[in-house]
């Protein structure tokens, strides 16, 4: 018909992959522009506004970097299970559980401790809480074969309702006049931020360290190798006798733990308290991080770049919400479009189009 045929592409250079990624993103931006046109907005104005809103001034750059921190931590964490094709969609609740643990501890048995002692403890507790919460879907999958997309999603909803219950009830603040808010954490538990911005440096550094750690884990450790084998060829992993239970538990502990750290970071660096709705803290980071990780093709260094990019979309999205009176959902739409274009573009990494011999 068209004299074209498809051949599987057996290998491709990183340069080519990068080119395809950039091309996919560009296509995505075009589609977003078309969408703006559809809803009666000037696409160029809207896109320019987004760009200005996220990268156009020192202040916006600061805000973008601030929002990149949790994305970085969570996305780096997601690389690990995703490499093993374990679809952790539960990062949103893992973030929340980390924040919950740290907040509860900070308001109770840690409250009289000095900052340099309390904060590391809160980070540790947050890591453990997020990690343990993430073990639930791991066990359910290995023991009972329960699809992890469903279990992690259900746990997301359950955690949100549970924390809302706590914040409206047992954890309700006595010093706050609002309904669904806890007390503020003691001031020594606020993370230091770069003056003039909201960038909480400690968590940023933790994120970068995590990227390094995950890089070494996946590329240069036995566990990382096992994870990748499970992801690439399940049958081979089984024949090789890889312990699925052990690997899955560790994968999820790391992923949930890093998400929990992000939660503590948001709690101590930005909000200083827990409030309802829980999305005021988690802000969809758990879902956006999925795209961040996927865009970076599960490469920790790529995640550093893509987390900044998607933070820009969030901040820029806020900007056009205000100036163009668009709803919050606009950011989800943009993210969805970008993700679809990204996986559509993957086609060119897997196949090459050649002429059929006549």
């Amino acid at each position: 018909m068209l004299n074209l045929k498809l051949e599987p592409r057996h290998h491709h250079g990183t340069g080519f992959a990068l080119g395809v990624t950039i091309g996919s993103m560009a296509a995505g931006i075009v589609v977003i522009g078309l969408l703006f046109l559809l809803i009666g907005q000037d696409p160029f104005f809207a896109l320019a506004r987004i760009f200005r809103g996220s990268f156009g001034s020192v202040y916006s750059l600061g805000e973008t970097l601030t929002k990149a921190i949790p994305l970085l931590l969570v996305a780096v964490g997601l690389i690990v299970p995703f490499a093993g094709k374990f679809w952790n969609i539960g990062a949103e609740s893992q973030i929340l559980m980390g924040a919950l643990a740290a907040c509860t501890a900070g308001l109770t048995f840690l409250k009289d401790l000095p900052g340099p002692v309390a904060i590391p403890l809160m980070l540790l507790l947050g890591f453990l809480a997020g990690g343990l919460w993430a073990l639930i879907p791991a066990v359910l999958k290995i023991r009972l074969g329960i699809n992890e997309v469903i279990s992690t999603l259900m746990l997301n909803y359950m955690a949100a309702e549970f924390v809302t219950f706590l914040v409206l009830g047992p954890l309700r603040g006595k010093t706050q006049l609002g309904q669904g808010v806890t007390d503020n954490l003691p001031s020594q538990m606020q993370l230091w931020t770069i003056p003039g911005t909201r960038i909480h440096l400690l968590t940023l550094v933790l994120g970068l360290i995590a990227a390094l750690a995950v890089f070494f884990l996946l590329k240069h450790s036995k566990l990382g190798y096992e994870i990748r084998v499970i992801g690439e060829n399940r049958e081979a992993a089984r024949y090789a006798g890889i312990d699925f239970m052990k690997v899955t538990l560790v994968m999820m502990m790391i992923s949930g733990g890093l998400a929990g750290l992000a939660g503590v970071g948001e709690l101590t660096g930005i909000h200083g308290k827990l409030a309802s709705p829980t999305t005021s803290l988690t802000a969809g980071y758990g879902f956006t991080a999925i795209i961040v990780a996927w865009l970076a093709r599960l490469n920790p260094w790529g995640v550093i770049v893509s987390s900044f990019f998607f933070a820009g979309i969030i901040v820029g999205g806020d900007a056009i919400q205000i100036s163009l009176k668009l709803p919050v959902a606009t950011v989800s739409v943009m993210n969805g479009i970008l993700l679809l274009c990204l996986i559509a573009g993957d086609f060119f990494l897997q196949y090459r189009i050649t002429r059929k011999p006549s």
Partner: protein
Amino acid sequence: MMDFILLILMRGVVAALPLILASQGQILTEKSGILNLGVEGNMALGALGAFMGSLWGGPVLGLVMAMVFSASASLVHAGITIGLRANQTVSGLAIAMLGTGLSKLLGKPYIGKAISTTLPAWVFMILGLVVTLGLWYFLTRTRTGLKVRICGENPIAAESNGTNVAATRAGATLVGGAIMGLAGAFVAMSYQTSWNDEMIGGRGWLVVALAIFALWKPWRALLSSFLFAMVFVLQYVLQPLGIPSNLLGMLPYGGTLVFMVIYGLVNDQRKMAAPAALGNAYRRGER
């Protein structure tokens, strides 16, 4: 007492309707081998189409537009997963994200508005029964239905029998999507009286679990929908007991988890019921 029980059961039936319709669509899609996690997006777009259609031209237009909007999302999913052989899990997630986002974005002008001619629930009850019956008949008693099933079990065998796997899967995905649109239509045209942002409220994800729990069989899905819906209704039954509403809010999701645990305990670990080729991309001529 009897009245109370009947009332609960009726509420359960009504709550089950979107689940029934959407799960039938999901079964059709997944039976052909295409994993679909985007149901939430399909339903959200269906609700939007139904609302807009009803406002512009009445209930019939509403139903039609619901099906068209939802099928459009499925068209994208099919195009990407079948045509471009992309990862079906990620594509589904993206559709869910995009569908719900678009529904909120395009639905913003309608927030608070109400349709004047809503459809009574019994219309959708009949639709639900007809679709379930029709799907069962189609899958088990027709040649095309058999082709769909073979595509999901063993696409290589299907292809060697002359079936165009890509076209069959695409068709199943599109029609399945249209049926899911009807579920969204129910929520927008019957269950609620005016447009609001969180129309679907996570039910699409329950449908994903439902199809698995029902072993991808239409009649089981009908019954299971009712079961899942009763957990929804249970929230409202237990409320007067003084249990905090957020804890009760955990019930539908916790209930779904419990059902999945039961499913996992009862069925063989290898999930013999799943279409064998579910989630795997297929390329003509490939081994």
